[in-house]
């Protein structure tokens, strides 16, 4: 066994590796929620804050998440098409 293997099994045993992977996923999820909340707050919460979010604002926030993801997917698709077209044009 090389000293390198030795070191990695010592520091990162299986439990810890799984733990770090799960925590990293949680952190990524959390970071995306912060980002979406910031974007959707600006879009949906237009009135002065009152004692409760009204149902229209709630619906807007929840739709905002799905539409943002749809937009991101649509743009990715569109972008891929453009790149593909350019790549095939430079061939001819």
């Amino acid at each position, binding site marked *: 066994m090389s000293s390198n293997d030795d070191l990695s099994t010592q520091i990162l045993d299986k439990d810890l590796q799984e733990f770090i992977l799960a925590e990293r996923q949680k952190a990524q999820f959390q970071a*995306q929620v912060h980002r979406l*909340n*910031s974007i959707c*707050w600006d879009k949906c*919460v237009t009135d002065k*804050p009152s004692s409760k979010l009204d149902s229209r604002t709630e619906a807007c*926030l*929840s739709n905002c998440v799905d539409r943002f993801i749809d937009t991101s997917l649509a743009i990715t698709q569109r972008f891929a098409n453009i790149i593909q077209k350019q790549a095939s044009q430079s061939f001819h």
Partner: protein
Amino acid sequence: MSKLSPAQKDELMDEFKQQFAIANAQELLEKMTEKCFSKCVTKPGVSLDSSENKCISMCVDRFMESFNIISRSYSSRIQRESNKV
């Protein structure tokens, strides 16, 4: 370096989780301050007046509400997307 004992491992994981929770709270606080300042303090005066203070505390509560709604919808979207595959 010797292998970590189970107790040491637990300690490390707890420490990790605590740091994560702190970072999360800091991010929330920072965003909240930014959003509620721009919403509630439209013309900064010599001090925060009572209506600005009231607005700020409501804004904080609404921001948390919004955060929870976003978190729920994002999580259910991920669930739906992973069921598609």
